């Protein structure tokens, strides 16, 4: 089989090449002349970048020539982009950082809100990338528990960034010993375990407060991060629960810049509710390149994320370890009593608040097979503290030996698994 002929794309100033690549194909991209950036990270000239299962936009401020080898499911050039306003936003934020540095104040704390599929994560990435390009060290707070940009779906994370964001690997891989082009980032992760904050809003708000507390404590000490500020990526919830979460988030993180992406009504509401002295609310248009990701695509992204956690990417492969563990050496926990029924299903007047943060034991059984469990950093089971203890990582249950009272798990690294309390969430993964 011969390699497909590379395809050449000529982009004018401020054009964007949008490509979508299926999960089972690989596409190589190379910048031949000019400048180009992907989600804010500048591409090097004549360097091959490889993508799979991604939807990316290559933007150029000055015009460029790009070579693409491989088949993309979608590829076209767009000349209308909101990039100018994105850049202006960055400059405005950067000016605030400069002032913050001069006056020894805190840098901007930015929250990006909007419905699903408007490019919130891409915009976060862009703003962070731009900040990193100017040697800032922002902290990225990811409250979108459905996606898990840094670790795994189901988590609330905060990640200090110091090196540029890798175009191929996204935010970089957390704490690998592998050589990666991006930096090895060290996130702080709390386990929520549900795809949407609505599934257990009490736990969500508990974790949100805890995360904010830790981030604020770090910012107190970390001057570079303090002046660089934080970028908060939210989940796409914009109903009443969503508004509550947004309000809590603004308070907890002392947010002073709210960016509303692609939603006029939300912008109006945010302006009405939160615009006051010291808090700026701006709206930005969503990029035409943003496509709706259907459930299947999200599911595939999730699977890819889990796979990457254990096995790494093709560029930096990781070796997970399989270990056998006795049932009695671990405790598997989950939050909430049994399976949570939606609030509407509860009898009128019934309050579920107590059971929402109730920790229950899960007996290891066949049900656990293919589950991804989160390993808590907790050493003792003290409620409710254990809920708010951050994560050490994840393991994957690959086999259950009921008779021998053992289970085989895939652990990210060799050695025994450091902690005995494991959270069971709704995350499952069928390893191919």
């Amino acid at each position, binding site marked *: 089989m011969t390699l497909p002929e590379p395809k050449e794309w000529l982009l004018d100033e401020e054009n964007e090449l949008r490509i979508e690549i299926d999960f089972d194909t690989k596409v190589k991209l190379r910048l031949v002349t000019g*400048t180009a950036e992907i989600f804010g*990270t500048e*591409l*090097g000239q004549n*360097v091959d970048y490889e993508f799979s299962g991604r939807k990316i936009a290559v933007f150029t401020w000055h015009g460029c020539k790009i070579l693409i080898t491989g088949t993309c499911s979608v590829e076209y050039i767009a000349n209308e982009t909101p990039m*100018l306003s994105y*850049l*202006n936003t960055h*400059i*405005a934020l*950067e*000016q605030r950082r*400069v002032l913050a*540095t*001069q006056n020894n104040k805190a840098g901007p704390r930015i929250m990006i809100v909007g419905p699903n599929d408007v490019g919130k994560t891409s915009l976060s990435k862009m703003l962070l990338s731009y900040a990193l390009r*100017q*040697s800032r*060290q922002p902290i990225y707070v990811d409250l979108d528990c459905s996606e898990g940009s840094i670790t795994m779906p189901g988590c609330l994370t905060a990640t200090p960034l*110091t*090196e*540029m964001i890798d*175009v191929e690997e996204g935010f970089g891989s957390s*704490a*690998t*010993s*592998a*050589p*990666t*082009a991006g*930096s*090895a*980032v*060290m996130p*702080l992760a709390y386990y929520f375990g549900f795809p949407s904050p609505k599934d257990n809003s009490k736990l969500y708000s508990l974790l949100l407060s805890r995360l904010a507390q830790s981030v604020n404590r*770090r910012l107190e*000490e*970390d*001057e*570079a991060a303090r002046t660089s500020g934080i970028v908060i990526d939210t989940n796409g919830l914009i109903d009443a629960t969503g508004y509550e979460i947004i309000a809590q988030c603004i308070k907890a993180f002392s947010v002073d810049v709210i960016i509303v992406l692609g939603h006029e009504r939300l*912008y109006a509401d945010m302006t009405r509710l939160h615009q006051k002295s010291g808090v*700026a609310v*701006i*709206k*930005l248009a969503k990029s035409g390149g943003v496509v709706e990701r259907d459930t299947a695509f999200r599911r595939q992204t999730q699977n890819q994320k889990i796979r990457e956690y*254990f096995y*790494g990417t093709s560029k*930096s*492969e*990781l070796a997970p*370890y399989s270990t056998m563990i006795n049932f009695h050496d671990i405790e598997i926990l989950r939050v909430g009593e049994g399976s949570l029924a939606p609030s509407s299903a509860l009898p009128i007047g019934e309050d579920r608040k107590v059971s929402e943060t109730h920790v229950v034991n899960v007996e290891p059984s066949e049900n656990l097979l293919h589950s991804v469990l989160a*390993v808590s950093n907790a050493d003792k089971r003290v409620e409710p503290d254990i809920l708010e*203890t951050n994560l*050490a*990582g994840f393991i994957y249950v690959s086999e259950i030996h009921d008779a021998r009272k053992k289970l085989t798990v895939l652990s*990210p*690294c*060799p*050695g*025994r698994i*450091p902690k005995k309390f494991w959270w069971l969430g709704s995350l499952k993964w069928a390893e191919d």
Partner: protein
Amino acid sequence: MYQQQYQQPPAQQQRQQQQHGGGGQSREPIDPFQARQLYRNELASLTFNSKPIITSLTISAGENTSVSKVIVQTIEERLRTAPANQKLPTLYLIDSIIKNVGGPYLNQFARTIVTLFLDAYAVVDSSAKASFEKVLGTWPNWTSQLFPKELIAKIEQGVRSMRQQKQGSYQSSSSHGKPHYSDRPREDPYSQNASSMYGSNGSQNRPTPPSAPVESSGDNGLLKDIQLLMLQKQHAMIMNPADQASAKQVAILQQLESLVKTTQLTPESSNIIRQQLAQLWTPAPAPPALPVFPQGMPPVSSPMPPNMIPVSMPPLQPPQPPSMPLPPNLPFPPPQFPPQFQPGSIPSPHMMGAPLPMSIPPAGIPMSGSLQMPIPPPSMPMPMPLPPPSMPMPMPRPMPMPTMPNAPAPPTLPAPASNLFASLMQSGLLGPNGALANLNRNSQSPMMGGTPPPPMPIPLPLTSAPGPASTPPTLDRADQSEQDRSVMSLGLIELTSQDIQRRRPAAIQVMYGTPPLQCNQCGYRCPKSADAQKKMDSHLDWHFRQNRRMKDKAKKSHSRSWLVGEEDWIHSREGDLSQSQQPVFFDFASGVNKTSKDEQALHEEIAAMKEQIVSEVTLVQALRGADTETTTYIAAQNIIAKGCSICKEKFIKVWNEAEEEWSYKNAVVLDKTIYHATCHADLVRSTARQAAAAAAAAAVATATAESMSALSSSSTLPASSESSDATITTQMDIKDEDMKEDIKPELNHLKDEQQEQHDSKMDHDMTLAGAAAVAPESDLPTSLKRKLEIDSEEKSELASKKTILSEDS
């Protein structure tokens, strides 16, 4: 084979010890927790063998003996948790501290040094192992006693048994005599300025050619002063290419350097040069002199000159103007730096030149000596933030220069290069054209062209310095102010939905700065700033490391580590996270591998030995031995040319880029006979094999006996250590049952090694317990707790080893 080039001659060492004695003074207590944070941040930058960092850390340690406990803990922690390839620099740091600072550090390190050393030794690769041995070899015969002989013997024993274990399972653990690395003559006349072990990657510390006669350590010190100053000026040049003054100064300094190298200077002439040099130091926001430190700093091995510590600015910024302008007629002499002056807390200029990606703690505190910044000692006079002459402020800022109508008028501080030039010419050091004049002992005159008055004490009353002294200068990002300015020059963009839609062509320029300095391996672009080149260099270094690791990928599998706990996340900084992301509990992995050494490893070891290159100078020295008179250089060369005494093959001569000297591959000299290291190892092995059976039996017997006595003497210990002992025994039992006759000898090794580790653990536990009774320090409970944590970790590691073993069976 084991050269000890980095050692300082005893004379110099002693002087430094004395200096240190003078420097020991009471300080205000420092918060141990804060100290730990600061030291840990500094330590995090020690990811490669860098002399400047080691020096700086040593100084910090020397200045903060009151929190030595915390510092030692931090270093130990670092050595334990650092990735295998970063352990060596940390060992060098320990070596540097015990040799140069000594004092309380000796006792502190003595508690754990055995396990610390051996644990690290066990996991590092073979080239690092050789360096470990090299360091160890210098300890027993050091000018002052570093560690008790028993401890060193223990380490040597451990090293030996590990080596043997690696060399093959058929060999017994017994070996005769001392390891050869401690027998070797240590004297090396070039040790002063030959490339040192620490930080051999610094191009500025190029070794002086062995032919250059260096007469006295004083001249040597002067030489270092000059080199340091040159570094600083070069840095200034890089920061600001338009800085003609610095360029000129560098040129002069280069001449001076070669002059000092090639000429014998009288003390007077070196003094004159020193005084001239002193003027050139760029001042920093730091006290010009510390009266309590007449001789100054705790001594450090090079490159810090023994008697002159450069004043320099915190690495990335020009000093901030003092927040409180000085009263106009303050009798404050301009900071003029006599050679002996020693500001306590000043980063070495090396920090600026060194390619350190993460060397600056983001907390806004200068690196070295930073531990004391928050609490200035009472004697510390007003920091004097003057604009450095060679570094124009990137942004126009108000400069509240103190005007000094009443002050004596010494030479202006930003001494132009021509001043130095003129003075040097006047004093006869330089010829009329700047060419080097012939210098000899009687060409000196005290005339100095109206330059510096003698150093004077600072009469500044303490009360006048409350403001800036209490707030440490913030380490802001003034290096980026060029960039910041371009951002600000766009006009303040309001964060309103209207304002951010306006087209601003200049905004793109901010992101794609001109002229571009861009990495060709990725899109990284250096922000337009004064030290862009330095940043780019460190970025390229990073690429280099990444690429090298990529190449290693095939050999070694990588995996994701566990995330750190909440508290660690809050207090850690990216620098140390990305460098040493393996928490303690993963070291276990290497422990497991250790027991499964096989033939493959042996071959690798032999290959590594063959690759080992030994400096020609070292070989010649070794061959000449003590009686230098009778064996000439030529004779020694002839012996080398004859080849290995065992296999008679010739040695392969190669040019060693790193050390810049001729070297031989796989050569070793023992008892004035030259061998291939591999041939000799074979010889030793075959001799040892004969004694193996008897020795193995003896070893087991001794081990058991020792174990009994150790146990009986440890009644005061916490229960954990006994239970871990029990675990060891159980594990050995399991092994005994499982293993067949033919691997018995290896088992003996294992037992031996475990026994040693166990013994040494006992040992340090007991020391600890003893110290706990004596020392009333406040942070002791933490240290004890930590110790117990380590113990329990070890215990659980052993337990899980046991689990694995039982599962296997």
